């Protein structure tokens, strides 16, 4: 039994390593000192002044916007692509398949400079649009992989059955194919969303004026001496993430119990 306690202690230690820095941030978001050095007094001021920090909020808005658009687009084109590659044989399939692995495998910085170079070469202005295009590019492959993993266990026969029963292609797609691929699509969307939210490196190279994202803003703020407003914003984001994840856990546990 002693080894069981040791194991639990080990699990605790690893989680502590992962969570201590986050915990510190939450605590310091209530710290009246601006310098993030010692804890002085308890205050809510940073949450209030956060509302006036236009540039920080704008970066946050940009980030959400980019994440939303790039998730939506990459889920749509990724799902279509995955289905097509599963269903049809075509000459360039192998090439496309290889291309899809490039953004996953190569170091992010290489994709970042490649995109910067091509935007420069073609004289495309760096803006919210270029940054969104870049995000779609690195999100799509992950969506394809997720959808594909569900597709591999998907039974084509039900589509035929549906069509036999008189459903046209369109109806079959929306009522049969997509619902049964939903788990894969959903996890692809989740992955794409979180990748886009957190991306530093590729955004760093493809951002232009007025398209600052939250990670980039925080990067420059950390270098310049971060204000506790950032801690406050993180605490709020964290709260939302925890709520969403708790829902996810509850569903998952219920599923486990049923299964």
């Amino acid at each position, binding site marked *: 039994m002693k080894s069981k306690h040791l194991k639990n202690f080990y699990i605790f230690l690893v989680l502590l390593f992962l969570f201590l820095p986050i915990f510190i941030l939450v605590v310091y978001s209530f710290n009246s000192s601006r*310098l993030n*050095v010692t804890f002085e007094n308890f205050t809510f001021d940073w949450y209030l002044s956060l509302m006036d*920090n*236009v*540039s920080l*909020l*704008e970066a*946050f*808005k940009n980030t*959400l*916007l980019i994440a*939303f658009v790039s998730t939506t687009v990459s889920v749509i084109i990724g799902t279509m692509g995955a289905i097509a590659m599963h269903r049809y044989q075509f000459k360039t399939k192998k090439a496309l398949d290889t291309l899809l692995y490039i953004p996953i495998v190569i170091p992010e910085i290489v994709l970042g400079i490649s995109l*910067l170079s091509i935007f*420069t070469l073609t*004289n*495309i*202005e*760096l803006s919210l649009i270029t940054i969104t295009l870049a995000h779609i590019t690195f999100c799509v492959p992950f969506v394809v992989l997720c959808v594909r993993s569900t597709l591999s266990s998907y039974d084509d026969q039900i589509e035929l059955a549906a069509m036999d029963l008189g459903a046209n292609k369109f109806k079959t797609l929306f009522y049969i194919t997509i619902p049964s691929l939903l788990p894969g699509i*959903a996890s692809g969307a989740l992955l794409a969303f979180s990748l886009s939210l957190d991306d530093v490196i590729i955004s760093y190279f493809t*951002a*232009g*004026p*007025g398209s*600052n994202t939250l990670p980039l803003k925080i990067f*420059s703020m950390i*270098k*310049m*001496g971060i204000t506790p407003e950032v801690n406050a914003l993180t605490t709020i984001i964290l709260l*939302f993430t925890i709520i*969403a994840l708790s*829902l996810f856990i509850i*569903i998952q546990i219920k599923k486990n119990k049923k299964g």
Partner: protein
Amino acid sequence: MKKIKLLVLFILLLGLTGCNQKYENGEVNVFNWSEYIPDSVIRQFEKEYDIKVNYSTYSSNEECLAKVMSSKTGTYDILVPSDYMVDIMLKKDLLEKIDTASLTNFSNLDPNYLNQSYDPNNDYSVPFIAGGVVIAVNKQKIEENITSYNDLLNPKYKDSIVLLDDERVVIGIALKANGYSLNDTNDYALAEAKEFLLELKPNIKLYDSDNPKGSLITEEASIGVIWNAEAALAIGENSNIEIVFPKEGIYKWIDNFVISKGAKNKENALKFINYILNPEVMKRVVTYFPYKNVNQETNKLLSDSYLNNEAMNIPDRIMNNGEFVIDIGENITKYDRLWSEIK
């Protein structure tokens, strides 16, 4: 159902943060140094002129040039390069002519800072602010009197110096320490500079251009070779810190507003520049980021706590004794190399 709820939540969030005002008079894209113009000044400009300011920052002249050159022409309207970078940008034909006659506040500027060698008639650049690289010393930790760059080599200062992460500055002071010019490109001079920097290396705690004052305030570093305003701000937070002007003379600079070639919002850019040259506005800038003010009218408004503070308002004798960095053309590759070697 849950997913729909989540979606609604996100859209609400977007809506909350997304209630953007519309700006009647368009926008202006400003690309400036980090820590230079306080946020409140920019917001006020937006309100008064109904122009949206897209503000982005860089932390070295080279970064500014690289970003401008890799962006489509006209991506940025206003840039704030230092003296030698104005020269480089002119050679690269990156700048738009500025009609200084149209700037009603241009006459506020101190003539001592006008018509410099890099732009003799101020056809392309408008001086914004000046400053220099100084040494900040925490007197509680460092007993000796530091008067020269060579004093930094003292082995007692192991792991205690913060340096600007800027090759022209770091190599520049190494050259000056050995009695050469900031801009010397002779191999023997650079070899001596390399020697100096290798000897200095164990004493360097970190390189930081964005917030070197931070490590001085928290006392992680006890000596800083940093911009004068950073030193002034550090002194404000930690009274153990003092400023030293090394006897070899300082690295000095003037940063200038320029308008980039093909700028899409030239009119708005001129309005922005003129706004900053307003004595009241400039006063707010230099009280927030206390570099050397070059606006005579503003000097009349500034209090003694600024004017008599040598870290903020660097005395003229020190400025006159300082040296500008100049463009060294292709020889920059020698500097690049040396920089990678000593880092």
